[in-house]
């Protein structure tokens, strides 16, 4: 019997912590770009996406502390209440860390189906906190960003895995 939907397992080099820090900073930078109008509603939360990626890929290198701190930075940058992104990212990290063995067994398509609900939960937490703060529901387009983030997942996995791919050595085939 041929197992159909199991991702081929790659053997990768260990990831360098500097690279993780670099990707997190890059995601933060992309989040801080002057988005406006329709782009703003469609914009996925790149920091959430990258934090989730590393929590799934390297749950031992990065976890709650980093997710929580990135949340605080996002709160400062957005000028929102302290702790709302921190809380949302912590829950996201929890989801990633608990599900990491399971998610990595699946092919890309099924991984996306895991990622999108996690990101939606992230959005939902921010939404609930804002609701408590007295804000209005900004409309269902608010959730579109997470679906776009899900669509970006394969690209992100490809890019972030590049430095871990061993360079084939022609002398040693």
């Amino acid at each position, binding site marked *: 019997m041929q197992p159909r939907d199991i991702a081929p397992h790659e053997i990768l080099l260990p990831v360098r912590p500097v690279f993780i820090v670099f990707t997190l900073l890059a995601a933060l930078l992309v989040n801080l770009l002057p988005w406006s109008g329709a782009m703003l509603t469609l914009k996925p939360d790149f920091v959430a996406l990258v934090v989730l990626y590393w929590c799934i890929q390297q749950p031992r290198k990065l976890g709650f502390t980093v997710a*929580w701190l990135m949340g605080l930075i996002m709160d400062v940058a957005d000028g*929102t209440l302290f702790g709302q992104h921190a809380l949302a990212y*912590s829950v996201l990290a929890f989801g990633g860390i608990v599900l990491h063995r399971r998610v990595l067994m699946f092919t890309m398509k099924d991984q996306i189906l895991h990622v999108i609900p996690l990101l939606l939960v992230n959005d939902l937490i921010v939404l609930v906190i804002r609701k408590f703060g007295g804000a209005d529901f900004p409309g269902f387009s608010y959730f579109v960003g997470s679906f776009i983030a899900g669509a970006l997942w394969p690209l992100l996995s490809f890019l972030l895995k590049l430095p871990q791919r061993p360079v084939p050595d022609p002398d040693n085939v």
Partner: protein
Amino acid sequence: MEHSPPPFFKRGPTPLVRLLLCSLLSIALLIADARYRYLDDIRLVAAVIVYPLQRLAAAPGEMLARIGEFFVAQSTLHDNNLRLAEQNLLTGAKLQKYNALAAENAHLRELLAARQRFPERTIAAEVLYAGRDPFTRKIIIDKGEQHGIKAGQPAIDQLGVIGQVTRVYPWLAEITLVTDKEQLVPVQNVRNGLRAVLGGTGSTDQLELKFIPLNADFQNGDQLTTSGIDGVYPPGLPVAAVSNVERNAAYLFARIICKPVAGVSSRNQLLVLNWENKMPQRPADEEKPMRPKKSRRGG
């Protein structure tokens, strides 16, 4: 890391415990920030750390704009120049009249021993980016505490009020636009002097007059200016024009929709008014005569 002992030894607290810790900490922060405003100093420090990143993120857009400026045709510049010179002449003439009027007004006010209106100083600022928070209407400008901006100052463009400075960082400031749901502006109807409170609705292009009785005299096209009685906005700045009046006897108040006159969500340059209102001191609350405590024990 791959050679460290198997993961089921030495892993510290379980994810669930860590999640609970993080959540509790976040909720404590939320409460401390929302209820008690303890964290404003910490936010200031964190904002300084994030500032380079913010400038870096805004850089590509600025660069594109700069590059765009290079490719303006000479004829366009020439035309612009001519137009501006003409406009300058016209406004110069108006300004002369205004100066004469201002002098006359000052003189008359002196005669009446009335309170002088203080000249307002302005700080020109550029919008760095619109707030990324879909729940609120805010913009970040490139001037801050170091340039003399204080929280509470009004921001305007050449047409009217844009909003109010709500948070000040060392080199940045956050302006809440009049369209924000929580932002209120005291206004006056130019036509008949009726005072009202104008609030945002949260949508980009709509304001609403709050708590106006059904029979109040507001019509489509009425111009609303700041009334100045709040001491935040100087009086007489245009804010909005009434665009739709809906009177439904089923409701207590009329529903009056207005459109902002200033380019609230489209402006890249704006002025922050460094306006200190020398309001007369509020009369001190009269001490209420202490009511003699009722003693339970009968004397």
